[in-house]
C-alpha cells in the first residue's frame, strides 16, 4: 500500500519527465503489448473475484444471521477466506500494471494523468479503506458475533460499497479510452473531470462488470467447492462442499440470467457514442468474435442447466419434473445452434456462386440479430424454468390457491415466450433501426415473466410440505466437472470480452484522440487473441490454486477451521435437518 501511494505521489514528476522520454519502450522478449495484456487480464480476473465474492458473501451472512442457520455463516466465512487470500495478489498485479504503463507507455500515461490525476488519489484512498474494512470483517468474525453481529454485517456492506466505488473509478479510465468525453479537439480536459468520467460507456460497463463480477465470483467459488468435493475423504465433507458448490452456482446463475441485458445496454451506448465503432464491433473485423462468444455462453447456459438437472437427482420428489427436461434440452440446443450461426461465411468464389452469395440461403436467416435475440431470450426463460423446478423439487405447496398460482406462472412464461418469438419474426420485416428497438420489448417480456413467476412462487411455497431432505453429497461426481467447466469457460469468456472491449479502439490508445503509433498498433486476429487468453487463463488458475493453497495452510492442523463458532456445521441429513444455530440468535 505504501509503495502504491508513493508511486501515485510521484506521478506528476514522472509525467513531466515523460514528455522528454520516448513515447514507447520495448518490453524484453514478448514486447510491451503482450506484457500489458497479460498483467491487465490477470489483474482484472483477480479484481473481479475479490469484488464479486464479497457481494454475495455478505448476503449469505445476512441470511445466516436472520435465519439463525449456522451453515450460511460458515459458508459466508469460507467465501471471504477465499478472497482474503487473493487480496494482496490483486494489489501486486495492479501495481505491476501501473509500472508497465509508466515505463513502457509513458506518453499515453502522461496523457491519462493529465485528465484523471485527481481520481488517482480517490482510488488509492478507496483501496486503503476497502482493504482495512475487509481485514476487520474477516478477522472480526468471532469478535463481532452474537449481539454484535449487526456491526459485522455492516462492515461487510461497507466493504462492498468501497469495492464498488473502486470499480467505478477504474472503469472511468478504461471507458474514457473507448468513448472519450469532456475534452476539446486537442484532447485537453475542457472543464471538470466529471465530464470525462461520465462518458458514454462508463455506466453500462459499471453495471455489466458489477453483474459479471458476481457471476465470476460464484463460478470460481463453485469450482473451488467442486475441487474440494472431488478430493473429499468423508461423506460429511462431500455434503458440505456439494452444498457450497450449489450455492456458488446458484449465485452465478442468478446473476448470469440478467447479464445479457446489461450487454445490450452497453452495446446500445457504444452505438450511441459512435456508429462506426458499433458497426466495426458487430459487423467489422470483430464479427467472428461474437460467434465464439455465442458458443461460450451456450456452454454456460447448457452447463448450468445440466448441473441443476443432475442436482435434482439427489432430491426426493424431483421425479415429477423429469418430463420437462427433454423439452428444455431441445430449446437450449436449438437456441445454441441459432446463436452460433454466422451471418456471412468466408468462402471461395466457387462456393459463393454455388450457394448464391456469402449468406446461406436457409441458415443465413438465423445469423441475424432478430434470430439471435430470440434464441438468447428463450434460453434465459428455459434456464429460469430449470431453476424454478429445482427450487420446488422436494416441496409441495399446501396453499388452496395453488392451481391459480400455477396457471398465472405458466401464462406469464407462455406470454413472454410469445412476445419474444413474435418480435423475433416481425424483426425480419422492418428496418434495422426499428428492429434494434424490438430487443427492448423482448427483454422486458422476459424480465416481467421472471418477476411475476417469482412473486407467485415465493408465497405459494412458503410453509410447503417436504417430500424428503436433499441428500447433500450424493450428487454425481460429473456434476463437479460441470462446475469446473463453468468456471473455466466464464474466465475464458472474460478474457475474450476484454479483448473485444480493448480491440474496438483499433489503432487508438484513446479512441479518436490519441493514436497508437507503436509497433503493436495492429489489432490482432481472433486466433492470436485466443492463444493469449488461454495462456493467461492457465496462469490465473495456477495462481488461484497457489493462493488458495496458501490460504489453506493456516487451517492445517486446526480442528474446526478458523475457529469461529459456526465453523464446520453438520450437513448430514440434508437441508431439512435441524441446522446448527448462530450464537446469539433466538430463532
Amino acid at each position, binding site marked *: 500500500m505504501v509503495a502504491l501511494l508513493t508511486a501515485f505521489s510521484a506521478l506528476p514528476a514522472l509525467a513531466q519527465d515523460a514528455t522528454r522520454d520516448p513515447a514507447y519502450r520495448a518490453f524484453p522478449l514478448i514486447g510491451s503489448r503482450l506484457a500489458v495484456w497479460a498483467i491487465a487480464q490477470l489483474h482484472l480476473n483477480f479484481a473481479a473475484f475479490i469484488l464479486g465474492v464479497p457481494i454475495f458473501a455478505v448476503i449469505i451472512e445476512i441470511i445466516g444471521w436472520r435465519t439463525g442457520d449456522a451453515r450460511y455463516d460458515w459458508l459466508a466465512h469460507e467465501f471471504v477466506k477465499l478472497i482474503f487470500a487473493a487480496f494482496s495478489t490483486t494489489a501486486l498485479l495492479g501495481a505491476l500494471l501501473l509500472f508497465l504503463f509508466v515505463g513502457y507507455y509513458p506518453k499515453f500515461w502522461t496523457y491519462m494523468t493529465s485528465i484523471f490525476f485527481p481520481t488517482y488519489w480517490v482510488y488509492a484512498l478507496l483501496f486503503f479503506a476497502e482493504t482495512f474494512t475487509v481485514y476487520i470483517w474477516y478477522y472480526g468474525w468471532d469478535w463481532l458475533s452474537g449481539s454484535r453481529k449487526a456491526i459485522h454485517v455492516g462492515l461487510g456492506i461497507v466493504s462492498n460499497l468501497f469495492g464498488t466505488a473502486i470499480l467505478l473509478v477504474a472503469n472511468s479510465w478504461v471507458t474514457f479510452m473507448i468513448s472519450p468525453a469532456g475534452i476539446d479537439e486537442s484532447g485537453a480536459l475542457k472543464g471538470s473531470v466529471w465530464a470525462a468520467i461520465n462518458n458514454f460507456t462508463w455506466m453500462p460497463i459499471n453495471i455489466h462488470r458489477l453483474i459479471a463480477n458476481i457471476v465470476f465470483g460464484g463460478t470460481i467459488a463453485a469450482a473451488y467447492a467442486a475441487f474440494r468435493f472431488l478430493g473429499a475423504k468423508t461423506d460429511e465433507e462431500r455434503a458440505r462442499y456439494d452444498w457450497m458448490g450449489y450455492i456458488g452456482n446458484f449465485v452465478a446463475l442468478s446473476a448470469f440470467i440478467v447479464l445479457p441485458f446489461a450487454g445490450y445496454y452497453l452495446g446500445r451506448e457504444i452505438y450511441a457514442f459512435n456508429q462506426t465503432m458499433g458497426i466495426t464491433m458487430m459487423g467489422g473485423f470483430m464479427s467472428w468474435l461474437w460467434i465464439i462468444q455465442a458458443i461460450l455462453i451456450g456452454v454456460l447456459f447448457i452447463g448450468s442447466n445440466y448441473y441443476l438437472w443432475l442436482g435434482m437427482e439427489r432430491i426426493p420428489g424431483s421425479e415429477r419434473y423429469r418430463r420437462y427436461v427433454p423439452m428444455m434440452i431441445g430449446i437450449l440446443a436449438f437456441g445454441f445452434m441459432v446463436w452460433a450461426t454466422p451471418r456471412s461465411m468466408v468462402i471461395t468464389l466457387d462456393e459463393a456462386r454455388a450457394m448464391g452469395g456469402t449468406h446461406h440461403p436457409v441458415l443465413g436467416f438465423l445469423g441475424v440479430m432478430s434470430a439471435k435475440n430470440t434464441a438468447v431470450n428463450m434460453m434465459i426463460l428455459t434456464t429460469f424454468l430449470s431453476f424454478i423446478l429445482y427450487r420446488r423439487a422436494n416441496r409441495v405447496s399446501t396453499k388452496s390457491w395453488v392451481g391459480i398460482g400455477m396457471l398465472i406462472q405458466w401464462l406469464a412464461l407462455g406470454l413472454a415466450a410469445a412476445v419474444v418469438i413474435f418480435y423475433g419474426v416481425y424483426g425480419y420485416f422492418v428496418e434495422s433501426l426499428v428492429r434494434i428497438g424490438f430487443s427492448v420489448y423482448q427483454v422486458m417480456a422476459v424480465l416481467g415473466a421472471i418477476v411475476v413467476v417469482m412473486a407467485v412462487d415465493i408465497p405459494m411455497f412458503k410453509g410447503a410440505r417436504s417430500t424428503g431432505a436433499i441428500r447433500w453429497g450424493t450428487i454425481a461426481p460429473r456434476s463437479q466437472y460441470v462446475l469446473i467447466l463453468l468456471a473455466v469457460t466464464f474466465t475464458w469468456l472474460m478474457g475474450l470480452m476484454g479483448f473485444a472491449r480493448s480491440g474496438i479502439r483499433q489503432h487508438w490508445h484513446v479512441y479518436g484522440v490519441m*493514436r497508437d503509433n507503436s*509497433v503493436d498498433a495492429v489489432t490482432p486476429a481472433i486466433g492470436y487473441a485466443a492463444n493469449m487468453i488461454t495462456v493467461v487463463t492457465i496462469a490465473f488458475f495456477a495462481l488461484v490454486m497457489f493462493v488458495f493453497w496458501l490460504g489453506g495452510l493456516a487451517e492445517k492442523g486446526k480442528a474446526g477451521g478458523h475457529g469461529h463458532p459456526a465453523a464446520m456445521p453438520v450437513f448430514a441429513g440434508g437441508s431439512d435437518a435441524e441446522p446448527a444455530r448462530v450464537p446469539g440468535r433466538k430463532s
Partner: protein
Amino acid sequence: MRLPVGVKVGAFALFVMGTYTYYANSIPQIQSKPPAELSLEGGNVTPAQLVKAGEEIFKTKGTCEICHRIGQKGTRAPDLAGVGARAAKTKPGMSARQYIIESLLQPGAYLVEGYPNIMPQVDKPPIGLNRSELWALTAFLESLGGTPDVKLDDIPKTAGAAAAGGGAAEVKIPGDPKAGEAVFTGKGGCIACHKAGKIGASPVGPDLSQIAKIQTPEYVMKKILDPAGSGTVAGFPKGVMPPMFGQSLTAKEYVDLVSFLMTLK
C-alpha cells in the same frame, strides 16, 4: 493407478481451454491494421490514379463501406451508385464537387430523406482523412456516374488538421528533410552506424527506419546533443555515439537532420 484429483481437474480444464483455442484458430482470421497515410500534395497525379486512390480510401481508411453500398440500397446510408451525376442536382446552386465535399466535411448540413444523421465528419478522428485523401475520395465519388474535376485547392486548407488525434498531435519541425538527409549521409556521418529506410545498412547502432513512429521529436533532439545522457537502446554498446554534434553541426543542419528523422515512419 488412481490419478490425483488435481491432475484430473487440471487436464480437464486444459482440454476445455484447448478446445476453445483450437476453434478460435480455425475460423477466419482478420486483423485490423492501422490505415496508411496517403500524401498526393506536390505530386503529379492523373485523374485515373486519383480515382483509384479514392476507391482505396473508400474501402479502407474511410470506412465508408460500413454504411454505404454502391448499387445496393442500405438501411443506414444512401446507395452511392450514380452519386457523381445526382449530386449536381441535390442542392440548388451547388456543383456535384461542392456537394460531395460538404457531405464529407459537414454530413449533417443536408440529409437524404429517410436516413438518420449518423455520419461522422470524415476529416476528424477517428477516421481522420487528410486533404490528399479527401481529394482522392471526392474524385472517386464524382466518378460514380460523373466526371472527376476536383482539384486539391477545392478542399479547404483547414480540413484534416486534427486528423492525427489531438492528444498525439505531431510537432512540426521547421527544417528541410531533404537537407537533413544530406546531413545524415554526409557531414553528420550517421549512416556509418545507422540504417534509415533505404539509406544505409550498418548494424552498429539501432535501425532508425521507424524512429518517428516510436520516439518523440524532443527525444530525438536530445539524443543527438546528449547521446550518453539520453540512455542507450538495449542490446547496443554504450558510449559509441559521438557527443560532439552540438558543436560540429550548425543550427540549420541540426534542425534539418531532426526534420529528416521525423519523416522516418
